């Protein structure tokens, strides 16, 4: 049986990939995808612990997360589309409306 630490390492690596993606990439679409990767890293941890402790609650939570992630992706992509239309570009460094 694969020990739980392996799952945790994998989830950690995925999460870090997501973080670096969010911080380093300038394309909004890529940022959005990186966020999805981080979410799935969390899902992986939930499922792994659920399995290890024989408790289904973790898996139930994962389903909920997936559903919310789908909705979030839909909203996020819609924002990206409207951003693209308004700004003719999806470079995240141009989006400093909060400061201005």
């Amino acid at each position: 049986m694969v020990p739980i630490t392996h799952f945790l390492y994998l989830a950690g690596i995925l999460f870090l990939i997501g973080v670096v993606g969010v911080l380093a990439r300038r394309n909004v679409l890529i940022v959005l995808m990186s966020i999805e990767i981080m979410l799935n890293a969390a899902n992986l941890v939930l499922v792994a612990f659920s399995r290890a402790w024989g408790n289904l609650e973790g898996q139930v939570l994962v389903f909920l997360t997936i559903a919310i992630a789908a909705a979030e992706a839909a909203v996020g992509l819609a924002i990206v589309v409207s951003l693209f239309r308004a700004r003719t570009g999806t470079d995240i460094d141009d989006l400093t409306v909060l400061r201005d």
Partner: protein
Amino acid sequence: MEGSFSLIWIPLFPLLAAVINLVFGRMFMRSFGTRVGREIIHLVAIGAVAFSCFITMSAVFDGMIEGGFARLVDRVYPWIVSGETSVAFELMMDPLAAVMTFIVTFVGLLIHIFSVGYMEKEPAYHRYFGYLNLFMGSMLILVLGKSLALMFVGWEGVGLCSYLLIGFWFDDEVKATAGRKAFVMNRIGDFGFILGMLLIYMVTKSLDVDAIRMACASGERSPFVTTMVAGVSVATVATLLLFLGCTGKSAQLPLFTWLPDAMAGPTPVSALIHAATMVTAGVYLIVRLNFLFALAPLTMAVIALVGTVTAVFAATIGITQNDIKKVLAYSTVSQLGFMFIAAGVGAWVAAIFHLMTHAFFKACLFLGAGSVIDACHHEQDIRKLGGLRKKMPWTAGTFFVSCLAIAGIFPFSGFFSKDEILLHAYVNESAWSPGLSYFCYGVGVLTALCTAFYMGRLYFLTFEGKFRGDRHTWDHVEEQSIMYGPLVILAFLATVAGAVGLPHVFGVSHVLHEWLRPVIALSSAFRGDYAIGPKAQFVEHGHVSTVVELVGMAVGLTAGIAGLVFARMLYREGPSALAQRFAVRLAALYRASLDKYWVDEIYDRVIVRPMRALAHVCYRVVDVVFVDGAMVYGTAGLVGGIGNGVRRLHNGNVRRYLLWLLFGVGLVLGLVYANPDVAQLGPSPVHTIDAGGLRPTLKAPKRSGSIAEPLETPEGRDG
């Protein structure tokens, strides 16, 4: 021997009237028309004072018992109660307070009535009567207060009213400044009063006059004498400090310069506050605490000395002044000096006697001056007056009577009171101050001569000879009956008031002395009515021997008559050539007197200007640089600077925020890794306790949910 009586109404009536007039007075004048409004205002004011005068008299009759006076005490309410300290709001009318209350309410009443005529064209009528009533209330609290703390309330209250009324016409810069000067000089004295009060409290743990009397009762063994402050007895230090307060309030050297300036106020105010009542508060305070002062021979010598020097100092200034009110002001300072001579030689009764006669004749003189000023278009320069007797017979007559009284002419009141003071000054020689009695007496007689001279000069220049002003003014001169009415009453009192203090030669008892006996009983027990010193041979059977008394009277009378005759010689027909020659021959003396010995100028150079400079430095350095610069702007600048620095982080870039977030998370994780205890919020130790089951269970139930105290339970760490 103590009765109770609702004494509180005596000061309360004027205070209520003050509130009514100050709050609603303007409304009265607006809504009922100026004329009716004024009627209401002065009826309220005069009515209130008349009521307190009436209550005073009924209280005096109430307290009168066979052969004396039962003290009346009104315990109004416990005022300050804090731990062991308790100061009660108690009013007391003893024989001394009775005399003083009578003077204040009665003279006050007459002056209120006079004011109706004098202030008839004043737009701020309500303010004038409001302040005047406020003064009456404060003065009565000062007089009736049973504890020093309550007296101090009145003391400050009259000071405030004095300031308000001197600067009554405050749009005139000079008058506003005069008010301020009076206030500031009085503050210097008040500081002495407070310190003296605290010293007394230190010894007796109470400010009640009775408690102080009790503490004094053992004479030389009393705690006031045995407790030392810097090598001197508390009695001496405390009384010296209290006397500093008296020099401020009663305009003695060195704090007298405010009183002549106080003449900027309306003339009835000068009569009431700066002649008859408030300025005598210092004398009253000393006599009130006579048992304490009697224990401090050094202070007594100082008081006598200061009184003597002030008396002659002010009298010599009075000789050359040309403003009718200024002459009277310096005369007041000088007469107050006489009262302090009396207090300083332990002649308490003589001090109160002179206080009373002075209240009558000086109020009469001031009101007479007011009548003249009112009739002559506010002309106060006696060089431009003259001959007014023909147009103002009542004013001239009463003024003349009061002049005779103050000059000490037999049988007017001033003769008896001044004579009694001089006699005591001569006879009371204490071992402490050898030769002081000769100094006091000699200078006192000289002052009496000056007094008679300047009063004669004032009378002759104002009322005799020819009018030296312009024709138009002369045509309009007339006196009002509402003004000379009070004058007549005061002149009558100034004539006959001496009857309460006839000297022993007349073979009748000294009424005032008998009346005040309970007040001065204790200090009489310490030192006798006459200090038996080197001059014991002058005292026989507790009285000054007849020969000494007669000689004293003759000397006093001669001085008075000489002064008046001399004044008549020089000023009968206006300033004569002879008077001019004197001024030229004695130019230096004349100049010094006319310029009031440059005391104001000296104070200005020595005190006011250095203080101003210091204040300027404080302003430039402490206020601008330190408070404004470092504290106020500094704080704002610091916060602004931090904000400016931190603002750079807030650049609107979400990914940068995220980076900081990550940095923060990393920091927390790092800390937790380095120090695992920080993260030990721990699972419930209850579980562990249940599992162990062997621990003493006394404290166990309290440990449930021990999130707040995880570090104290070893079990918490394991979980």
